[in-house]
């Protein structure tokens, strides 16, 4: 069965790129525009969350914390999108429970490599 990936980003172009790349690779991709939206989408089974950190309403760190606090989503891999300039944010995300990260800007190959690493 195809794995379901939720991409969370307030940037539609990044979401589109993630969606194209991953659905081409055979994944089912759901989209959410911010952390709050993502939590509503997480009521269905999702195998991986790819989230931006800077978002309105609920940011990436907040999302990661909420997902980790939710027993229904136990152990679900979460990959965060960070920028090089925000090393501190990366550590914060890691402490909140992120599985891995991708540094922006990234290419489709890098994205696929990371997804494969955490999702198999």
């Amino acid at each position, binding site marked *: 069965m195809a794995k379901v990936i939720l991409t969370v980003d307030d940037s539609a*172009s990044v979401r589109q790129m993630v969606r194209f790349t991953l659905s081409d690779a055979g994944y089912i991709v759901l989209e959410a525009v911010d952390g709050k939206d993502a939590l509503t989408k997480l009521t269905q089974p999702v195998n991986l969350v790819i989230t931006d950190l800077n978002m309105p309403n609920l940011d990436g760190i907040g999302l990661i914390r909420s997902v980790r606090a939710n027993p229904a989503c136990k152990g679900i891999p979460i990959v965060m999108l960070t920028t090089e300039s925000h090393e501190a944010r990366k550590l914060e995300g890691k402490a909140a429970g992120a*599985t891995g990260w991708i540094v*922006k*800007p990234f290419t489709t190959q890098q994205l696929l490599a990371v997804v494969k690493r955490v999702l198999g």
Partner: protein
Amino acid sequence: MIDKFKQAFQEEARELLGELESALLELDRKRDDREVVGRVFRALHTIKGSGAMFGFDDIASFAHHLETAFDRLRHGQLEATADLISLTLAAGDQIKTMLDEAAGHGSVDRSRSEGILAEVRQLTGLPDAPAEAPSSPSSPSGDGGGPILDWRIRFRPGPGVVLNGTNPLLLLRELRELGQLRIDLDTAAIPPLGEIDAERCYLAWDMVLTTAAASTAIRDVFIFVENDCDLTIERGLARPAETIAPVAMTANRSISDGRRAADSGTASSIRVSADKLDQLVNLVGELVTVQARMGEVAARSDDADILAVSEEIERLTAALRENSMSIRMLPLKSSFERFRRLVHDLGIELHKEAELTIEGADTELDKTVIDRLNDPLVHLIRNSMDHGIETPEARRAAGKPRTGTIHLSAQHSGANVLIRLSDDGRGLDVEAVRARAVEQGLIDGAARLSEAEIFSLIMAPGFSTAREVTGVSGRGVGMDVVRRSMDELRASIDIGNQPGAGLTVTLRLPLTLAIIDGLLVRVGHSHFVLPLANSLECVELTRQDIQDSHGKHIANVRGELIPYIRLSEYFQMETPRPECEQIMVVETESGHYGFVVDQVVGDHQTVIKNLGRLYRNVQVVSGATILGNGTVALILDPHRLVQNAVQGVSHNKRSDGRRTRRNSNLDRQNSKQTNVFVQKGNRIDGK
């Protein structure tokens, strides 16, 4: 593929610039609102991040400087000054020209970009640091080429590794892809069964990897976990060259290359010119009309095969129609947000303070309607700013807050969308409008007009109440433009006036201009269509029911008393009343109303045709449609029907006023007479 991403970024960046602009304008009012600073920062941040991803490096580095400034603002190291805000507004415009240039329109004045950045640096005191070059720590690695070595790897993940979403087995599998891997499992740390926490990881692995990959490639596999695990990677002995691993890898790569090539042909969204969509909708309209005829023919032929095919076609056309209409629906948001800048700029120009509040911007409307809505709304907002909102001093004197409010809202109402623009300004001076109309010769000095009729005067061509022509309005082109565009859209305008407290203009727009779902009804020999979106139910009205209500036009529908309008009476059609009539219960703004018809024929996909200029003042009819047998059915506007029935209980009362007006200019220009239609109803529908 990448071009498509670029296009998406282009569109998104434009939206973000809109957001940036509105956030900046808000910041201008609330200088220390952290929330708003956050919005500005996020917009810049996304422009920067996505820009770099899709190859817009100039935009990314430009946005980076501004982002840095607002990051400091966010952390309270800098203050939001008017200079910074207008500078950032200018920077937004500059990014827009950069986008235009990338899209092939115009060119960017680079010295201007430099100038803006220099000013930003001056304001923030930031050094001239270039945006960091895009780097990629998780770049594809593991390329062979080096000597084939044995690596001894010991990996003991932290206990919480699984909870954080890492599956250690995947890491081992990834290692195996680098070369030959021998794994020994270390289970020594597993506690007795009773103490096991199923969510903890107690395992460790000792591995020997034989690979040509560099040590960084091996370390890269563990990059996500290296901070919370024990990991040692030691180099073993050099080995004679083996070809197994590299071969396996090339095979992998060629497969994925092949897949990429095949995938580049697929697409999830494409851009189509609006003209093509219009053509599509026109063709669907024609198809629906032909399908109706087909249904008619099939029903007559009494041939089961043809009937089955006809039903199938009907189902498909309905689906096709719904699909092609939905393609053209867009939210009003981007259109509405643009007006914030307008209000801001007008405020500066007119030395007034006003704020635009927006509600219901997610409401979707046909693209053609949205496009044609822009100019009228600009006119209305200008009018509100110029004539409605007073100067801050006058407002204070009148006991109002210094800053005026203009509220723009959109909401669904059946098959319509209501767009409301209200301000808390001084409202319309009814007497002044009247005096001015007499002065301009639009009406006779002795004419007695209702308030609604006086308001319709301000939409007459050339009419203006402004004492002097300002740069913003007062030239008398405005409301008549609004009126004309609304007529073209088959929309209506209502003006609600509270002298001294503000003016509300309500535009009632049809959801779409082409095809609607309708309910076909018959009265005598004529057919009418009522929009299905408003229709609630159909019930029977027997002679007994009429007797029970003692001749009052009220029906009892499951305990609810519903007033009704008998269409044959309303249109003065002299048809025999059938034994059992039917009531269509319709939802209107003023509650539930019934329309009594001879027969409800059924639902009907209604291709809307305009009635033409001659009938444009007929309010109760919003268009006409062609039925399967080629006859014409009028599309009724239930809201107007009810309004007219409630207001003009007797048409005779108004006939005096009409005679007065017939001689005036007004009559030729913009009178709204439903009576014309009422009296000639039978003739209009082509009988």
